[in-house]
Protein backbone atom coordinates (compact mmCIF):
# COMPACT_ATOMS: atom_id res chain seq x y z
CA UNK A 1 0.00 0.00 0.00
CA UNK A 2 2.76 2.40 0.94
CA UNK A 3 5.99 2.93 -0.95
CA UNK A 4 4.28 2.88 -4.30
CA UNK A 5 6.74 3.73 -7.07
CA UNK A 6 5.96 7.11 -8.53
CA UNK A 7 6.66 8.07 -12.09
CA UNK A 8 8.97 11.09 -12.21
CA UNK A 9 7.16 14.23 -13.19
CA UNK A 10 3.75 12.67 -12.70
CA UNK A 11 1.91 13.51 -9.53
CA UNK A 12 0.34 10.22 -8.45
CA UNK A 13 -0.43 11.04 -4.83
CA UNK A 14 -4.05 12.19 -4.69
CA UNK A 15 -4.53 15.63 -3.17
CA UNK A 16 -5.63 15.76 0.45
CA UNK A 17 -9.08 17.02 -0.51
CA UNK A 18 -9.61 14.12 -2.91
CA UNK A 19 -8.46 11.72 -0.23
CA UNK A 20 -10.82 13.27 2.30
CA UNK A 21 -13.74 13.11 -0.13
CA UNK A 22 -13.05 9.44 -0.97
CA UNK A 23 -12.77 8.73 2.75
CA UNK A 24 -16.13 10.35 3.44
CA UNK A 25 -17.72 8.38 0.61
CA UNK A 26 -16.47 5.16 2.22
CA UNK A 27 -18.26 6.08 5.44
CA UNK A 28 -21.43 6.67 3.46
CA UNK A 29 -21.07 3.19 2.00
CA UNK A 30 -20.37 1.72 5.46
CA UNK A 31 -23.58 3.39 6.67
CA UNK A 32 -25.48 2.01 3.70
CA UNK A 33 -24.20 -1.46 4.54
CA UNK A 34 -25.20 -1.12 8.17
CA UNK A 35 -28.62 0.29 7.27
CA UNK A 36 -29.37 -2.65 4.97
CA UNK A 37 -28.27 -5.10 7.68
CA UNK A 38 -30.45 -3.37 10.31
CA UNK A 39 -33.53 -3.74 8.11
CA UNK A 40 -32.83 -7.25 6.82
CA UNK A 41 -31.95 -8.61 10.27
CA UNK A 42 -35.13 -6.91 11.59
CA UNK A 43 -33.20 -4.99 14.27
CA UNK A 44 -35.03 -1.93 12.94
CA UNK A 45 -38.41 -3.61 13.41
CA UNK A 46 -40.65 -2.16 16.11
CA UNK A 47 -42.24 -5.59 16.49
CA UNK A 48 -38.92 -7.31 17.21
CA UNK A 49 -37.92 -4.70 19.80
CA UNK A 50 -41.21 -5.17 21.65
CA UNK A 51 -40.76 -8.94 21.52
CA UNK A 52 -37.26 -8.57 22.93
CA UNK A 53 -38.27 -6.43 25.92
CA UNK A 54 -40.92 -9.02 26.81
CA UNK A 55 -38.47 -11.94 26.46
CA UNK A 56 -40.80 -13.60 23.98
CA UNK A 57 -38.25 -14.50 21.33
CA UNK A 58 -34.59 -15.36 21.00
CA UNK A 59 -34.16 -13.41 17.75
CA UNK A 60 -32.85 -10.09 19.11
CA UNK A 61 -30.74 -11.75 21.79
CA UNK A 62 -29.14 -14.03 19.22
CA UNK A 63 -28.63 -11.02 16.97
CA UNK A 64 -26.94 -8.86 19.60
CA UNK A 65 -25.01 -11.75 21.16
CA UNK A 66 -23.53 -12.86 17.85
CA UNK A 67 -22.86 -9.22 16.88
CA UNK A 68 -20.85 -8.61 20.06
CA UNK A 69 -19.05 -11.94 19.70
CA UNK A 70 -18.13 -11.23 16.07
CA UNK A 71 -17.08 -7.66 16.88
CA UNK A 72 -14.92 -8.87 19.75
CA UNK A 73 -13.13 -11.63 17.84
CA UNK A 74 -12.57 -9.61 14.67
CA UNK A 75 -11.35 -6.56 16.60
CA UNK A 76 -8.86 -8.67 18.54
CA UNK A 77 -7.68 -10.29 15.29
CA UNK A 78 -7.42 -6.91 13.60
CA UNK A 79 -5.28 -5.50 16.40
CA UNK A 80 -3.13 -8.64 16.75
CA UNK A 81 -2.51 -8.79 13.00
CA UNK A 82 -0.71 -5.46 13.20
CA UNK A 83 -2.67 -4.29 10.18
CA UNK A 84 -2.72 -0.50 9.95
CA UNK A 85 -5.83 1.55 9.35
CA UNK A 86 -6.47 2.87 5.82
CA UNK A 87 -4.52 6.05 6.59
CA UNK A 88 -1.56 4.06 7.91
CA UNK A 89 -2.18 4.43 11.65
CA UNK A 90 -1.99 1.77 14.32
CA UNK A 91 -5.48 0.49 15.17
CA UNK A 92 -6.50 1.81 18.58
CA UNK A 93 -9.70 1.63 20.56
CA UNK A 94 -10.64 4.71 22.57
CA UNK A 95 -11.57 3.80 26.14
CA UNK A 96 -14.92 4.96 27.50
CA UNK A 97 -14.83 7.46 30.34
CA UNK A 98 -14.69 5.86 33.80
CA UNK A 99 -17.55 6.12 36.28
CA UNK A 100 -21.02 4.66 36.64
CA UNK A 101 -23.57 7.38 37.42
CA UNK A 102 -23.99 8.71 33.92
CA UNK A 103 -24.17 5.20 32.51
CA UNK A 104 -26.90 4.17 34.94
CA UNK A 105 -29.02 7.34 34.79
CA UNK A 106 -28.45 8.09 31.13
CA UNK A 107 -28.78 4.42 30.24
CA UNK A 108 -32.11 4.11 32.04
CA UNK A 109 -33.45 7.24 30.34
CA UNK A 110 -32.39 6.04 26.92
CA UNK A 111 -33.77 2.55 27.61
CA UNK A 112 -37.16 4.02 28.55
CA UNK A 113 -37.29 5.84 25.23
CA UNK A 114 -36.09 2.76 23.34
CA UNK A 115 -38.81 0.57 24.85
CA UNK A 116 -41.53 3.17 24.39
CA UNK A 117 -40.89 4.09 20.76
CA UNK A 118 -39.36 0.76 19.80
CA UNK A 119 -36.55 2.61 18.03
CA UNK A 120 -32.99 3.56 18.96
CA UNK A 121 -30.86 6.07 17.01
CA UNK A 122 -29.69 3.70 14.21
CA UNK A 123 -33.17 2.50 13.28
CA UNK A 124 -34.36 6.11 13.55
CA UNK A 125 -32.31 7.08 10.49
CA UNK A 126 -33.10 3.81 8.75
CA UNK A 127 -36.86 4.23 9.21
CA UNK A 128 -36.75 7.76 7.82
CA UNK A 129 -35.02 6.29 4.76
CA UNK A 130 -37.71 3.62 4.55
CA UNK A 131 -40.30 6.38 4.33
CA UNK A 132 -41.77 6.14 7.85
CA UNK A 133 -42.09 9.92 8.04
CA UNK A 134 -43.60 10.21 11.55
CA UNK A 135 -40.21 9.05 12.84
CA UNK A 136 -39.08 12.59 12.02
CA UNK A 137 -41.04 13.62 15.13
CA UNK A 138 -38.97 11.20 17.22
CA UNK A 139 -35.80 12.48 15.57
CA UNK A 140 -36.71 16.15 16.13
CA UNK A 141 -37.44 15.56 19.80
CA UNK A 142 -34.28 13.47 20.12
CA UNK A 143 -32.38 16.58 18.95
CA UNK A 144 -34.27 18.63 21.52
CA UNK A 145 -33.36 16.07 24.21
CA UNK A 146 -29.72 16.27 23.18
CA UNK A 147 -29.86 20.07 23.41
CA UNK A 148 -31.48 19.79 26.84
CA UNK A 149 -28.63 17.56 28.00
CA UNK A 150 -26.17 20.16 26.74
CA UNK A 151 -27.94 22.81 28.80
CA UNK A 152 -28.22 20.73 31.99
CA UNK A 153 -24.91 18.83 31.73
CA UNK A 154 -23.10 20.68 34.53
CA UNK A 155 -25.96 20.08 36.98
CA UNK A 156 -26.26 16.33 36.41
CA UNK A 157 -24.33 13.65 38.31
CA UNK A 158 -21.73 11.98 36.05
Amino acid sequence: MTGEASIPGVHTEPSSTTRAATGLLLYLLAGLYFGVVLVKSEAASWYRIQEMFRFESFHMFGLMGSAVFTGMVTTILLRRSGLKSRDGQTIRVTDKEKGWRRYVFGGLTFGMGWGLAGVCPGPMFVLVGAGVWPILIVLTFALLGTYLYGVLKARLPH
Partner: protein
Amino acid sequence: MTELLDFLHSPWPWYLGGPLIGLTVPLLLWLGNKSFGISANLRHACAILLPERAKPGFFHYDWRRERWNLMFAGGLVLGGGLAGLIFANPEPTRLSAAGAQSIQDLGVQVRPSLFPSELTDLSNPGVWLLLAFSGLLVGFGTRYGGGCTSGHAITGLSTLQGPSLIATVSFFVGGILSANLLLPLFMAVIG
Protein backbone atom coordinates in the same frame (compact mmCIF):
# COMPACT_ATOMS: atom_id res chain seq x y z
CA MET B 1 -33.39 -14.83 -10.74
CA THR B 2 -36.66 -15.16 -8.81
CA GLU B 3 -34.70 -16.99 -6.11
CA LEU B 4 -32.28 -14.11 -5.80
CA LEU B 5 -35.15 -11.62 -5.60
CA ASP B 6 -36.83 -13.80 -2.98
CA PHE B 7 -33.64 -13.78 -0.92
CA LEU B 8 -33.28 -10.00 -1.21
CA HIS B 9 -36.84 -9.51 -0.03
CA SER B 10 -36.57 -12.02 2.81
CA PRO B 11 -35.62 -11.16 6.36
CA TRP B 12 -32.29 -12.63 7.49
CA PRO B 13 -31.90 -14.99 10.45
CA TRP B 14 -30.09 -13.71 13.54
CA TYR B 15 -27.01 -15.85 12.88
CA LEU B 16 -26.46 -14.02 9.60
CA GLY B 17 -27.54 -10.53 10.67
CA GLY B 18 -25.69 -10.56 14.02
CA PRO B 19 -22.20 -11.25 12.63
CA LEU B 20 -22.79 -8.71 9.85
CA ILE B 21 -23.67 -6.10 12.49
CA GLY B 22 -20.57 -7.03 14.52
CA LEU B 23 -18.29 -6.56 11.51
CA THR B 24 -19.07 -2.84 11.55
CA VAL B 25 -16.74 -2.45 14.55
CA PRO B 26 -13.50 -3.62 12.84
CA LEU B 27 -14.65 -2.07 9.55
CA LEU B 28 -14.77 1.45 11.02
CA LEU B 29 -11.55 0.90 12.96
CA TRP B 30 -9.86 -0.05 9.72
CA LEU B 31 -11.43 2.78 7.73
CA GLY B 32 -9.94 5.40 10.06
CA ASN B 33 -9.75 4.34 13.71
CA LYS B 34 -13.37 5.32 14.26
CA SER B 35 -15.39 4.08 17.18
CA PHE B 36 -18.70 2.92 15.81
CA GLY B 37 -21.62 4.87 17.32
CA ILE B 38 -24.66 6.59 15.93
CA SER B 39 -26.17 8.80 18.62
CA ALA B 40 -23.21 11.23 18.55
CA ASN B 41 -24.77 12.49 15.31
CA LEU B 42 -27.55 14.06 17.36
CA ARG B 43 -24.89 16.14 19.10
CA HIS B 44 -23.23 17.03 15.79
CA ALA B 45 -26.59 18.08 14.36
CA CYS B 46 -27.15 20.37 17.36
CA ALA B 47 -23.64 21.80 16.98
CA ILE B 48 -24.39 22.58 13.33
CA LEU B 49 -27.93 23.91 13.78
CA LEU B 50 -27.59 26.02 16.92
CA PRO B 51 -26.61 29.65 16.46
CA GLU B 52 -23.08 30.27 17.80
CA ARG B 53 -24.21 32.65 20.54
CA ALA B 54 -26.94 30.40 21.93
CA LYS B 55 -24.75 27.30 22.14
CA PRO B 56 -24.10 25.61 25.48
CA GLY B 57 -20.45 24.59 25.94
CA PHE B 58 -21.27 20.98 25.13
CA PHE B 59 -21.75 21.95 21.50
CA HIS B 60 -18.56 24.01 21.18
CA TYR B 61 -16.21 21.73 19.29
CA ASP B 62 -15.08 21.26 15.72
CA TRP B 63 -17.93 19.15 14.32
CA ARG B 64 -16.20 19.15 10.93
CA ARG B 65 -13.79 16.57 12.29
CA GLU B 66 -16.79 14.31 12.87
CA ARG B 67 -18.16 14.58 9.35
CA TRP B 68 -17.49 10.88 8.84
CA ASN B 69 -20.22 10.08 11.37
CA LEU B 70 -22.74 12.33 9.63
CA MET B 71 -21.89 10.57 6.36
CA PHE B 72 -22.43 7.24 8.11
CA ALA B 73 -25.90 8.43 9.23
CA GLY B 74 -26.61 9.53 5.66
CA GLY B 75 -25.68 6.01 4.57
CA LEU B 76 -28.16 4.61 7.09
CA VAL B 77 -30.94 6.64 5.48
CA LEU B 78 -29.96 5.29 2.04
CA GLY B 79 -29.69 1.74 3.39
CA GLY B 80 -33.13 2.09 4.95
CA GLY B 81 -34.51 3.13 1.57
CA LEU B 82 -32.78 0.29 -0.26
CA ALA B 83 -33.74 -2.51 2.13
CA GLY B 84 -36.95 -1.03 3.52
CA LEU B 85 -38.54 0.25 0.31
CA ILE B 86 -36.98 -1.44 -2.72
CA PHE B 87 -36.30 -4.83 -1.11
CA ALA B 88 -38.95 -4.61 1.59
CA ASN B 89 -40.17 -7.82 3.16
CA PRO B 90 -43.70 -8.33 1.75
CA GLU B 91 -44.65 -10.51 4.73
CA PRO B 92 -45.43 -9.41 8.29
CA THR B 93 -42.58 -9.94 10.81
CA ARG B 94 -42.60 -13.60 11.87
CA LEU B 95 -43.03 -13.11 15.59
CA SER B 96 -43.21 -15.84 18.19
CA ALA B 97 -46.73 -16.85 19.23
CA ALA B 98 -46.30 -15.03 22.56
CA GLY B 99 -44.92 -11.95 20.81
CA ALA B 100 -47.79 -11.82 18.33
CA GLN B 101 -50.29 -12.15 21.18
CA SER B 102 -48.72 -9.32 23.23
CA ILE B 103 -48.70 -7.04 20.23
CA GLN B 104 -52.34 -7.79 19.57
CA ASP B 105 -53.07 -7.08 23.25
CA LEU B 106 -51.49 -3.67 22.75
CA GLY B 107 -54.08 -3.02 20.07
CA VAL B 108 -51.59 -3.21 17.21
CA GLN B 109 -52.01 -5.35 14.08
CA VAL B 110 -49.01 -7.23 12.71
CA ARG B 111 -48.79 -6.07 9.11
CA PRO B 112 -45.91 -6.20 6.61
CA SER B 113 -43.93 -3.21 7.87
CA LEU B 114 -41.10 -2.17 10.18
CA PHE B 115 -43.26 0.17 12.23
CA PRO B 116 -46.97 -0.24 13.03
CA SER B 117 -49.39 2.10 11.29
CA GLU B 118 -51.29 2.58 14.59
CA LEU B 119 -48.26 4.54 15.82
CA THR B 120 -47.91 6.63 12.68
CA ASP B 121 -51.50 7.89 12.65
CA LEU B 122 -50.81 11.57 13.14
CA SER B 123 -54.51 12.44 13.34
CA ASN B 124 -54.27 10.99 16.86
CA PRO B 125 -52.76 13.49 19.33
CA GLY B 126 -51.73 10.58 21.58
CA VAL B 127 -49.41 9.35 18.82
CA TRP B 128 -47.70 12.75 18.71
CA LEU B 129 -47.24 12.62 22.45
CA LEU B 130 -45.82 9.09 22.37
CA LEU B 131 -43.38 9.83 19.54
CA ALA B 132 -42.27 13.18 20.98
CA PHE B 133 -41.83 11.89 24.53
CA SER B 134 -39.82 8.84 23.46
CA GLY B 135 -37.66 10.98 21.20
CA LEU B 136 -36.91 13.30 24.09
CA LEU B 137 -35.92 10.36 26.32
CA VAL B 138 -33.74 8.82 23.61
CA GLY B 139 -31.95 12.09 22.81
CA PHE B 140 -31.36 13.10 26.40
CA GLY B 141 -30.49 9.58 27.57
CA THR B 142 -27.98 8.75 24.84
CA ARG B 143 -25.93 11.89 25.45
CA TYR B 144 -26.14 11.58 29.21
CA GLY B 145 -25.19 7.90 29.01
CA GLY B 146 -22.53 8.63 26.39
CA GLY B 147 -23.88 6.33 23.68
CA CYS B 148 -26.67 4.11 22.42
CA THR B 149 -27.07 0.54 21.30
CA SER B 150 -24.33 0.83 18.69
CA GLY B 151 -21.78 2.73 20.81
CA HIS B 152 -22.20 0.79 24.05
CA ALA B 153 -24.00 -2.51 23.42
CA ILE B 154 -22.11 -3.33 20.18
CA THR B 155 -18.82 -1.39 20.14
CA GLY B 156 -18.32 -1.02 23.89
CA LEU B 157 -19.05 -4.63 24.77
CA SER B 158 -17.03 -6.05 21.91
CA THR B 159 -14.02 -3.95 22.98
CA LEU B 160 -14.51 -5.00 26.63
CA GLN B 161 -15.38 -1.60 28.11
CA GLY B 162 -16.68 -1.84 31.68
CA PRO B 163 -18.78 1.35 31.45
CA SER B 164 -20.53 -0.05 28.38
CA LEU B 165 -21.66 -3.09 30.36
CA ILE B 166 -23.22 -0.81 32.99
CA ALA B 167 -24.86 1.24 30.23
CA THR B 168 -26.17 -1.81 28.34
CA VAL B 169 -27.70 -3.34 31.47
CA SER B 170 -29.35 0.03 32.21
CA PHE B 171 -30.68 0.25 28.62
CA PHE B 172 -32.39 -3.09 29.12
CA VAL B 173 -33.80 -2.27 32.54
CA GLY B 174 -35.26 0.96 31.15
CA GLY B 175 -36.56 -0.77 28.04
CA ILE B 176 -38.18 -3.62 29.93
CA LEU B 177 -39.90 -1.15 32.25
CA SER B 178 -41.27 1.08 29.51
CA ALA B 179 -42.24 -1.68 27.06
CA ASN B 180 -44.14 -3.58 29.74
CA LEU B 181 -45.59 -0.76 31.82
CA LEU B 182 -45.44 2.60 30.06
CA LEU B 183 -46.34 1.51 26.52
CA PRO B 184 -49.52 -0.43 27.49
CA LEU B 185 -50.58 2.66 29.46
CA PHE B 186 -49.98 4.92 26.46
CA MET B 187 -51.76 2.47 24.14
CA ALA B 188 -54.79 2.33 26.41
CA VAL B 189 -55.04 6.11 26.23
CA ILE B 190 -54.36 6.24 22.47
CA GLY B 191 -56.66 3.27 21.74
